[in-house]
């Protein structure tokens, strides 16, 4: 079981309740939002969060009090999503991550640095444009943006949550942001902003 890592703790019932209430439950809103962004369904998000907290309690002795509870919980939720939810619903992703990584490490990457979006176009996106654009990304790209930009995890924490090397976190994040920018560019055009670069 992937949660059983590090020295096993020994908690009495009162301590278990304390850890659960003081270290796990404060993250429930972030967890729910993460679950929702992964599944795009409120009921599925609820199930995923409930399952995550249940597993967290069950394996609470694998968690060392005072360490990074949020990252630990996010990792459990992500694994539950992959192992339980994703298998039942959709076929696995078709994104070629090898290609994403090779491109990131190539000399071509700087050529795309100039955005075709303007800040004033972004400021006019006051509705659901950003949220919809994010939801439209492939789930693995969506995930890295949520973990980094929304939840503020560092690359190293993301690598642990996702079980991937830091280099892959960075290349995937770069590609995810490019794709998000492309989608926002489409919105900007539909809002009447002509493209952007002279």
């Amino acid at each position: 079981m992937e949660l059983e890592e590090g020295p096993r703790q020994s908690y009495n019932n009162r301590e278990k309740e304390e850890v659960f209430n003081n270290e796990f439950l404060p993250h429930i809103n972030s967890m729910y939002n993460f679950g929702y962004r992964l599944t795009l369904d409120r009921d599925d998000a609820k199930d995923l969060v409930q399952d995550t907290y249940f597993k967290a309690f069950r394996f609470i002795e694998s968690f060392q009090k005072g360490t990074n509870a949020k990252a630990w919980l996010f990792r459990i939720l992500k694994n539950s999503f992959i192992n339980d939810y994703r298998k039942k619903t959709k076929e696995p992703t078709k994104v070629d991550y090898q290609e994403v990584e090779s491109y990131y490490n190539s000399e071509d990457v700087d050529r795309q640095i100039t955005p075709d979006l303007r800040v004033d176009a972004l400021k006019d996106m006051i509705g659901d444009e950003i949220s919809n654009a994010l939801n439209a990304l492939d789930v693995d790209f969506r995930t890295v943006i949520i973990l980094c930009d929304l939840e503020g995890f560092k690359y190293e924490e993301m690598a642990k949550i996702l079980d991937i090397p830091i280099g892959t976190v960075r290349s995937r994040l770069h590609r995810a942001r490019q794709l998000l920018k492309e989608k926002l560019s489409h919105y900007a055009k539909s809002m009447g902003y002509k493209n952007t670069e002279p």
Partner: protein
Amino acid sequence: MSEPISPFTSTSGKRVTCMEMLQLILDGQVTSEQREYFKAHMDNCMPCFKSYQVDMAIKQLVKDRCCGEDAPGELILQIRAQINQKKA
């Protein structure tokens, strides 16, 4: 005026690209020395300057607009009920 020596180093010894610097800056995963270097670099690199503005704006928008709604109130009760059931 020439730029100071770069405090960005790649583990593989490869040249650190604008994009890599930009990403580290954007995600706050830099030292104060690297931040200062990048600020000076942007004065001479228009693509970096433009990308920085846009990327920061998108990052802020994601933070402001995608935090979603709070977990439903009954969810905590359901979690507790499930745990108590298991304990019994």
